[in-house]
């Protein structure tokens, strides 16, 4: 989730309108950017990941100008050739194959322009750029270097340069170890033998993407002309990021110039011409249940900054439009979600219940009738609770990457969870009679997901004095309610007291156990009162 902060007067200047409280709190969020807060002349909005073009105040204001009807004409960005070339060396193919760039001339970099440029760059890196892995942007003072440029991959020790914020030269591998950005992002390159750099004609390093720029091309208030590079591992994403950055600068009135990128074939970028997409009026009206005319649709599209002649014209910064449906959504937002009349539901279908869930409901009813309290514990647990403390072994479904150390497997049974509940409730009134009906996950090679979910029931009763009988009568009340003819057969489990333990047997097979919990187990769980219990795999008794 990206939250961006704008200076309200900066927005007002870019939009060309004073923004009222109502504008900020009600109208702007209806474009699809929830308000986070307004504070000290600044406003924060959440920007959805499909709209990185809204991450800069320039791009944000552009959208509001259209949305509020201040801009009424589709923007066509003009570019002219800079004559500058960038050559892509095949050595980058494995590590970071794509690069595109642009030149921006006659810039006036005030504090707020630099601030917004930095914010845009950083937010694109974090979200759209997948923390620089997919896309990284470099912004340089063009006048400090000598075109043309080359993008190539070199060994980590082959080249050294002064990275941004430093005074002395470092090799690429030194930067990876010592520079703050190097430490943070070097993992992106670590598995490659050669790392990418951009150099000028004098072999001066502009950039070591996606890690850090050179100090040489550092942008200051005095910078007049910019060179922008975007590198990455997905060509479309690289192009989209470049378009967002340069159109954002174009909104400030700066001049955009193209660069020839030679990568097998020649490409002239940025290409800021609008994309075209067909839209069927009847498709729009059917999906929205509206009767918009072509003209109305054209007006609504305009509110979203889209053009319309015979096709929809999509500006180069809109990276989210992949399908006609995306345009339909823009039309709906332009019309205003609040202006759609909800329709009374009318699709006639017949409900149907999962039989098993109905049965589980009845089991729950009987147990509640017996005065037991239902609890619901977590499916995620750990091996210590699920098996070791109970004196059993198990092969549970194991998680790979849990951030919580004691939640790294799926439980295979419920009893340890319920004993845990008793430990948590030693200060509460007794007797404590609790049960859980819950899902457990077992490994199962024959299933598509290699696991199977099992619904189990566990009952646990404790008081200062309690015995086997108390569990046996609950079990009998439950099973005989459903006319289940079961038997109890003396058995042995490491967590139950010998000679006070039985298997619950149905049709010759065990469906669970019943007994008194062994005091050595109670000690491990820090419990001082006797506990009786039973557990059943409900899948065995659910009516088929």
């Amino acid at each position: 989730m990206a939250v961006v902060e704008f200076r309200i007067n900066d927005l007002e200047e870019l939009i060309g309108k004073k923004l009222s409280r109502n504008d900020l709190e009600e109208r702007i969020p209806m474009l699809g950017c929830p308000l986070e807060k307004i504070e000290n002349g600044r406003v924060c909005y959440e920007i959805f990941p499909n709209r990185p073009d809204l991450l800069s105040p320039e791009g944000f204001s552009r959208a509001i100008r259209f949305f509020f009807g201040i801009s009424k004409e589709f923007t066509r960005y003009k570019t002219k050739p800079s004559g500058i070339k960038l050559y892509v060396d095949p050595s980058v193919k494995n590590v970071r194959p794509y690069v595109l760039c642009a030149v921006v001339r006659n810039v006036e970099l005030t504090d707020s322009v630099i601030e917004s440029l930095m914010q845009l760059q950083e937010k694109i890196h974090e979200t759209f750029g997948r923390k620089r892995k997919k896309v990284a942007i470099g912004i340089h003072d063009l006048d400090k270097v000598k075109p043309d440029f080359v993008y190539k991959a070199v060994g980590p020790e082959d080249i050294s340069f002064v990275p941004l914020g430093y005074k002395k030269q470092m090799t690429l591998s030194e930067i990876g170890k010592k520079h703050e950005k190097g430490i943070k992002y070097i993992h992106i390159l670590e598995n490659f033998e050669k790392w990418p750099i951009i150099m000028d004609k004098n072999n001066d390093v502009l950039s070591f993407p996606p890690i850090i720029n050179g100090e040489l091309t550092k942008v200051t208030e005095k910078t007049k002309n910019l060179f922008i590079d975007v590198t990455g591992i997905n060509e479309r994403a690289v192009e989209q990021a470049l378009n967002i950055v340069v159109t954002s600068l174009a909104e400030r009135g700066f001049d955009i110039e193209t660069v020839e990128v030679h990568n097998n074939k020649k490409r002239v970028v940025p290409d800021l011409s609008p994309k075209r997409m067909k839209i069927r009026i009847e498709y729009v009206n059917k999906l929205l249940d509206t009767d918009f005319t072509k003209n109305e649709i054209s007006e609504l599209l305009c509110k979203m900054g889209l053009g319309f002649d015979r096709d929809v014209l999509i500006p180069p910064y809109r990276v989210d439009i992949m399908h006609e449906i995306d345009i339909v959504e823009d039309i709906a937002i332009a019309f205003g979600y609040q202006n759609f009349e909800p329709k009374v539901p009318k699709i006639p279908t017949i409900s149907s219940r999962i039989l098993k869930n109905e049965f589980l409901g009845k089991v729950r009813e009987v147990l509640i009738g017996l005065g037991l309290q239902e609890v619901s514990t977590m499916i995620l647990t750990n091996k210590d609770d699920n098996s070791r403390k109970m004196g059993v072994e198990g092969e549970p479904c194991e998680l790979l990457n849990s951030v919580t150390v004691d939640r790294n497997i799926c439980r295979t049974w419920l009893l340890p969870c319920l004993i845990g509940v008793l430990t948590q409730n030693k200060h509460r009134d007794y007797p404590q009679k609790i049960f859980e009906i819950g899902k457990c996950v077992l490994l199962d090679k024959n299933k598509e997901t290699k696991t199977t979910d099992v619904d189990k029931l566990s009952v646990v009763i404790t008081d200062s004095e309690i015995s086997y009988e108390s569990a046996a009568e609950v079990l009998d009340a439950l099973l005989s309610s459903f006319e289940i003819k079961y038997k109890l057969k003396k058995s042995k489990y490491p967590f139950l007291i010998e000679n006070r333990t039985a298997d619950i047997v149905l049709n010759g097979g065990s469906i669970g156990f019943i007994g008194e919990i062994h005091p050595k187990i109670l000690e491990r769980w820090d419990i001082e009162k006797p506990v009786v219990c039973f557990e059943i795999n409900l899948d065995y008794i659910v009516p088929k």
Partner: protein
Amino acid sequence: MYKITKEGKRYLKEGFPETKLMSILRRPMKISELRNKVENFNIALAWAKKRGWVDVKSNVVIPVKKSVTEKLEEQIALKNLSEGKKVEEKMISLLLKRKLIEKKRRPLQVKREVSKLTQDLIKTGLWKRVKLKPYNVEIIGKRVYPGKKHVITYYIEKIRNIFFDMGFKEVEGPLVESSFWNFDALYQPQDHPARELADTFYIKKPSVCDLPEKRIVNAVKIAHENGGNTGSTGWRYEWSVDVAKRPVLRTHTTAVSARALTSLEPPAKIFCIGKVFRNETIDYKHLCELTQVEGIVVDENVSFRDLLGYLKEFYMRMGFEKIRFRPAYFPYTEMSVEPEVYFKDKKEWIELGGAGIFRPEVTRPLGIDCPVLAWGLGLERIVMLRTGINDIREFYYKNDLKFLRGVNPWL
């Protein structure tokens, strides 16, 4: 009240002594002579004299009245008393004086006081002889705990019933899910941030899932790569089958909806309620497993306005009268909507769940050519807003019996 004495009984049987005296005394007779012939002579003579029937002069009794034929008033009264009839007070005191009757003696015992009415007391009739101690009936009863369902169960039941009332079919799916169903089938590109280790639980054991039939896998692959027949440009990258096979703990029940889409015939309405998982550190705002609710409507003729209509109806049945809709973003829906409901007691609009129409890149590879309306919401959030719980760990993690026993089942 009165009982007749032994003497009274003899008088009743044999007559009064003064009457007997008169029947013998036909002439003046010496006292000494009479004494032998009349029982209770002294009493007989005293009463005969009192009544003026005889005179006594120098030891000789002289009859004044010739004979006594009528019954004495006392005799009648005594008879009546013996038969339980009413008798004048004057006669009673006369009979008492003559010791022919006496007051019945009441048993002199005090009734026993007991606190409990027992089966024994009722059966033996002893309850008649005991006094039941008065209770202080204004004392509030001691707190005992009824068996209750878990608070989440109450809400699941309520929401299940709302879906059934609206004609939805219940479906479910596995907790461990392939990345294919959890992400790829929902058109989430393989480098999507939601798929990162920081958000999603990946699974070490089992380490690989099977994929569904080739036809579906290929259609999804092509939708990602270039849009295929969906009318989309696709994401433009090389889709990896190995990434799709990686098992995860499902991050949303939309994975279940995706599976369901492959086997349903429109028109169809289905819903799913189940656990979902997020790789998050547990604190008062975050829990790594939560319960999600999701409903979908599949029909040739449904539109965005139908989606809003279903949302309005659903949330109204959940008890929210006012609802409004905001634009939102989900990778697999377009339009995407965030419903906000009005909380009367808080006097504010609160975002509750997400909704949208599945993208064609989602539905067409799964064999559905018509719009699919979908919405979902997290159950814990709604329970927290409704009950005022402000620590999400009350669910599943803390299991505080005081809280669970105190839950109000009337939602």
